[in-house]
C-alpha cells in the first residue's frame, strides 16, 4: 500500500507544541514576578537611588560579591583541575563532599560558620586581628561558603568539556601542565568560565541567609542590598524595599547580559561564515 500522491500539509507534532506552551507558562510565571517588582519599584526608584543607606548597601554588595567571587574562582579552578585531571584517589567521594552544601539551606551554612567562629578557634583568630562575626569580612566569608560549591561544579563542567586529546597534543609540542592550562584549557572553556564567574557574582549579590546568621544586618555597617530590603520590610517601608528590589533586578539584568555577551563563542563568526 502506498500513497497515491504526496501529502500537501506538514505533519503536526505534539512535542514542539508542548515545549512552546511550557515556555509560555514559564515566561508568564517569571514575568509576573518581575512585573510585580518593577511595577512597585519604578515609582520609588529615584528615592532609593538618592538614599545614602541604599547606596551604601549597593556598594557593600558589589564590593563583597566581587571579592568573594574572585576568591571562589581562585579556589574552584585549581580544585576543578585536580578533580578532572589530577588523578585524585576517591575523586567521586571528594566531589560529593565538597558539593554537599549545595543542597543545604544557606541559613544553616551561616549558622555553621557562626559556630566555628564563635568557638575557641574563632576567638583565637579574633585575638589575632581576624574578626568575621558581625563584621563586613564575614559577608565575604558567608558568600564564599554559599558559592564555592556552585563555582566548583560549574568549573568542573567547563573543564570536562575540553577535549583531553587536544591538551595531550599540546604536551607533545612541549607544553608543561601550567602552559597547557593557560594556553589551551582555559581558552577552550572560556565561555563557560565567564558564565560561572558572572553567575557566581550574581548569586553573591543575592546572598542573604548565611550572611544574616554570621554577620547580621547592621545599618550602614554590614548592610547589603538583600539586608537593606529585609530591614525596610521589617520597618514597614515597602516602597523603599521594592525600589531596592528594583535596583537588584537591574543589577541582575546587567550581570546576565554581561554573561551572554562575554560568553559568546569565539568562533561563532567563523562558523557563520562557513555556513554561507
Amino acid at each position: 500500500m502506498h500513497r497515491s500522491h504526496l501529502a500537501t500539509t506538514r505533519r503536526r507534532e505534539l512535542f514542539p507544541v508542548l515545549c512552546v506552551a511550557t515556555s509560555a507558562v514559564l515566561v508568564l510565571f517569571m514575568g509576573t514576578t518581575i512585573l510585580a517588582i518593577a511595577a512597585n519599584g519604578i515609582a520609588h526608584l529615584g528615592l532609593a537611588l538618592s538614599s545614602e543607606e541604599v547606596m551604601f548597601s549597593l556598594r557593600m554588595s558589589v564590593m563583597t560579591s566581587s571579592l568573594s567571587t574572585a576568591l571562589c574562582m581562585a579556589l574552584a579552578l585549581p580544585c576543578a583541575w585536580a578533580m578532572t585531571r589530577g588523578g585524585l584517589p576517591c575523586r567521586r567521594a571528594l566531589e560529593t563532599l565538597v558539593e554537599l552544601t549545595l543542597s543545604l539551606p544557606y541559613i544553616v551554612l551561616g549558622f555553621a560558620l557562626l559556630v566555628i567562629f564563635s568557638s575557641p578557634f574563632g576567638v583565637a583568630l579574633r585575638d589575632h586581628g581576624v574578626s568575621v562575626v558581625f563584621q563586613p569580612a564575614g559577608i565575604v566569608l558567608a558568600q564564599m561558603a554559599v558559592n564555592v560549591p556552585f563555582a566548583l561544579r560549574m568549573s568542573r563542567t567547563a573543564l570536562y568539556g575540553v577535549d583531553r586529546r587536544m591538551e595531550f597534543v599540546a604536551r607533545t609540542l612541549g607544553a608543561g601542565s601550567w602552559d597547557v592550562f593557560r594556553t589551551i584549557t582555559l581558552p577552550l572553556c572560556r565561555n563557560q568560565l565567564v558564565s560561572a564567574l558572572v553567575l557566581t557574582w550574581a548569586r553573591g549579590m543575592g546572598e542573604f541567609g548565611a550572611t544574616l546568621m554570621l554577620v547580621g544586618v547592621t545599618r550602614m555597617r554590614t548592610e547589603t542590598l538583600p539586608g537593606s530590603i529585609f530591614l525596610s520590610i521589617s520597618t514597614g517601608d515597602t516602597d523603599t524595599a521594592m525600589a531596592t528590589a528594583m535596583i537588584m533586578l537591574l543589577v541582575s539584568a546587567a550581570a546576565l547580559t554581561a554573561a551572554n555577551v562575554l560568553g559568546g563563542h569565539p568562533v561563532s563568526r567563523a562558523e557563520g561564515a562557513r555556513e554561507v
Partner: protein
Amino acid sequence: MGIGIEIRGLVVRRGQFVLRVPRLSISPGESFAVLGRTGSGKTVLMESIAGACEVSEGSIELDGTNVRELDPRDRRIGLLYQDCLLFPHLSVVDNVAYGPQRMGAGTHEARWHAQELLELLGVGHLADAHPNLLSGGEAQRVALARALATRPGMLVLDEPFSALDPTTRGDIRDAVRRVVRDFGCTLLFVTHDFSEAQEMSERVGIVLDGRLRTVVDSTLLLRTTHEDDVARFLGIQP
C-alpha cells in the same frame, strides 16, 4: 634524526580492554604501519608510545630510554590525529608556531618558521585563516606542519587519511612521504587500509583483538602465509 622504538612484553589496560605486544622493534628512520580492525588496539598502541596511555606491564624504549622516564613533551614525537585537533582559538600560523614557542623560540621567529612549513606543505596562503574554515585536506596539512614544527624524531599518525577523498588522500600521502624523507624522522602510522599500509610503509604490524599478531614486510603482506584469523582479516585464503 629518527627515533628507534623497542617494545618488550607490553601490556596496556584501558578499562576492560587489554593490549598485548610481546615484542616490536622499529628502526630509526623506518616507516611502520599498524594495521587492524576498528577497536583492535591500534590507537592504544600508538597512544602508549606517545604517552597518552600508561603502560601496565613491560617496557617501551625510545632510543634506549624507557618511556616511564620520559614526559610526553620530551619524547620528540609529532602527533597527528584523524580529526587533526587544531587549536580552534588560534590561527593556522599560531597553531604551527605553538610548539616552537613552547620550546623557547620568540613569537616572530616561531611564526616565520611556521610560515615556511606551511609553504612547504602548500597551505602558506592560509596562515591567517581560522581552523574552522579549513577543508579536511587543508586541516590535515596544517596539523602535519604543526607536528613537524618541533623537528620530531618520530611522526605518529592515527588514521590520518581515512576521512579524505581519494584525490586529497593521495596528495597528503605524497606530502607525508616527502617530509618524512626530508626530515629523516621515523614514521609510525595507524590504518585499517591495506593498500595504504603497503604504499606508505616498509613493514606492517597487524593488531587483532588486542594483540600484535605478526610483523611482515609490506611488499609481502598479501603473499605471506598467516594464521587463519589474520588471513581472514586480510581477505586471503587461510
